[in-house]
């Protein structure tokens, strides 16, 4: 079966700083793949290359068999990216923002409405969707952005810290949304500092350290290997 994502020997430097030193992994369709690692380990750089924002120095990245450098425009039609530090247009209402994104993805009226309905359901913000984004709390804005990321039925969603800054209840809701998205056939690459979240959601994880993949495998296998109760303990062990 075609892999949702295939990364081969990926390297990227900023001047003298080597952010990624030849990493390789692949993600199966319908899988939630967790990418974890300490600050500065190269997670964001890796995600940005996958979503066509940055170009790799060496190596190859394919999304559904399409090269991200050669077929960037095609890849962008299949993916969706939620950056860690993302914002929405402040003077637009939440609903206007969703309409804008829907318009950018489709010219078909019915499909557009479908996208918007779906986003309204995911965001679950009720009448506040008609208010300007600048009046939203951090949690509300994050839910709007997640709804935006999943509304267009992407085949591959790259989510960087999807629940950052959210309270327990909102985080739980968002995790449910991600699970449902995968149940319906989507594939997710999830990057997070919240080990419990990754453990709860991800099937397999890759642990990134100083631009290299340190560990890669099923969460259960890794726990066994490190004699750890949870991912946090593994992470702590690797850090030491």
């Amino acid at each position, binding site marked *: 079966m075609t892999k949702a994502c295939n990364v081969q020997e990926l390297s990227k430097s*900023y*001047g003298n*700083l080597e952010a990624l030193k030849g990493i390789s992994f692949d993600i199966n369709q319908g899988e939630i793949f967790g990418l974890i690692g300490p600050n500065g380990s190269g997670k964001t750089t890796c995600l*940005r290359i996958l*979503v*066509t*924002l*940055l*170009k790799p120095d060496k190596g190859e990245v394919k999304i559904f068999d399409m090269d991200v450098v050669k077929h960037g*425009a095609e890849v*962008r*039609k299949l*993916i*969706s*990216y*939620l*950056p860690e*530090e*993302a*914002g*929405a*247009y*402040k*003077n*637009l209402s939440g609903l*206007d923002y969703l309409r*804008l*994104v829907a*318009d*950018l*993805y489709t*010219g078909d009226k019915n499909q557009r409405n479908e996208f918007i309905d779906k986003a309204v359901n995911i965001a679950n913000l009720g009448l506040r969707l008609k208010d300007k984004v600048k009046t939203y709390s951090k949690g509300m804005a994050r839910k709007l*952005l997640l709804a*935006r990321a999943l509304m267009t039925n992407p085949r591959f969603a790259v989510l960087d810290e999807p629940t950052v800054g959210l309270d327990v209840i909102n985080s739980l809701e968002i995790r449910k949304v991600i699970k449902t998205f995968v149940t319906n056939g989507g594939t997710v690459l999830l990057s997070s500092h919240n080990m419990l979240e990754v453990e709860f959601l991800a099937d397999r994880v890759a642990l990134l350290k100083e631009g290299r993949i340190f560990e890669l495998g099923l969460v259960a296998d890794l726990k066994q290997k490190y004699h750890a109760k949870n991912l946090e303990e593994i992470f702590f062990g690797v850090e030491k």
Partner: protein
Amino acid sequence: MRILLALAKKEIKELLTIQLLIPMLAIMLIFTFIGRLMKSEVKKAGNPQTIIIADYDQSNTSRSLIKLIGNSNFIVQELSGDAEFLVNQAKQKKINTVLVIPESLEARVISMQRAEIKVYSIINNFSAFSEIGGATLKVVFRIINDSISTQMIRRINKDAPIATIKNPLKVTDFVHIREQTIQANPTEIKDYFRVQTIFVPVILLIVIIYLSQMIAAAMGQEKENKTLETLLTFPVSRMQILIGKMLGAGIVAIIISLLFLLGMKYYMGSFNQIGASEVSSIATQSFKLFPSQTVFYAMLTLTLFLAILCAASLATLLSIFASDAKQAQMLITPLMIFVLFPYFITMMIDINSLSPILKIILYIIPFTYPFLVPQALFLNQTTLLVGGMLYMLVFTVITMTIAAKIFSSDRVLTAKLRIRR
């Protein structure tokens, strides 16, 4: 097209906020208010002014002189006393002019000697309109001088050709323009040209300055509000994003400029009352010489449009390098200089008289052409006209291509990354 419209709509909604519109409306109101004030001042200056006259001659000549002043939009108050007393009286009554006619006026005129009239002007402000009364008085004196000199010449020789004696030299002006020679006054032609084209730099400056600020703000906000990273992963080409931004910012800039111009028009309208009539006679006479008004305005609009495109593309290119709205504003400052430099030079100096290096620099700056186009149209300089327009078009295309190239590279995001680390 659908994507462009969606992007432009977003841009307009983001830019056209109440915070932006309120100061704009305030400026418009201020212009309108000043315009109204000007109009009332002009009207006031046109009202009859009061003048104090002390007539020590009490002769036929002095009486007819006072009568002439009275008939020339002045209210005459006759007083007697020394100069100091008269000036004090004038100050108390808020009258600005005192005229003293000496005892010997008529006697001196009869004996063919020069007579002296003293005029005391009380200056209490330097506004332009306070000068109008003084100017009128000068005209009155010219008429009086003329009539006295006619009398004097008659006294020497009844049959003398008075008009010839007073103006022995008649100057007839010819102007060679657009390959034809006509009888006309060069100053009047130049004035006519100036009045027809005075609004070109004003429009250009306002629109370009606003447009580039709007584009800088649009790009800066995109980075500041962390929306760019997401926008770049949508299935939209980089060129579409850039053109959408230019389009949205362009519409906002045009709305703002129109508001501005409306206020300006009202403000300028108050001046036109004063000087317009002198130019209008030559305008009707010499219009046959010049391109038809439709062609003239169509070409002018086209040039302005091209210049605006150049500015928009340059502002887009510059603002890509900014990391936030403030920095974006700073980055477009050189663009302002590019507009102001040819504006001042072409206003003051004939471009053909400049050194070759300066000339080349001016021709490289695309904003030089809109300032040269009115002249090129009036003087039939087709090469300059067509060449300038083509150059502006090519400039825009090249700038946009470079902008899209940079916009597609890592630079847009990595510049920020480096600062963070």
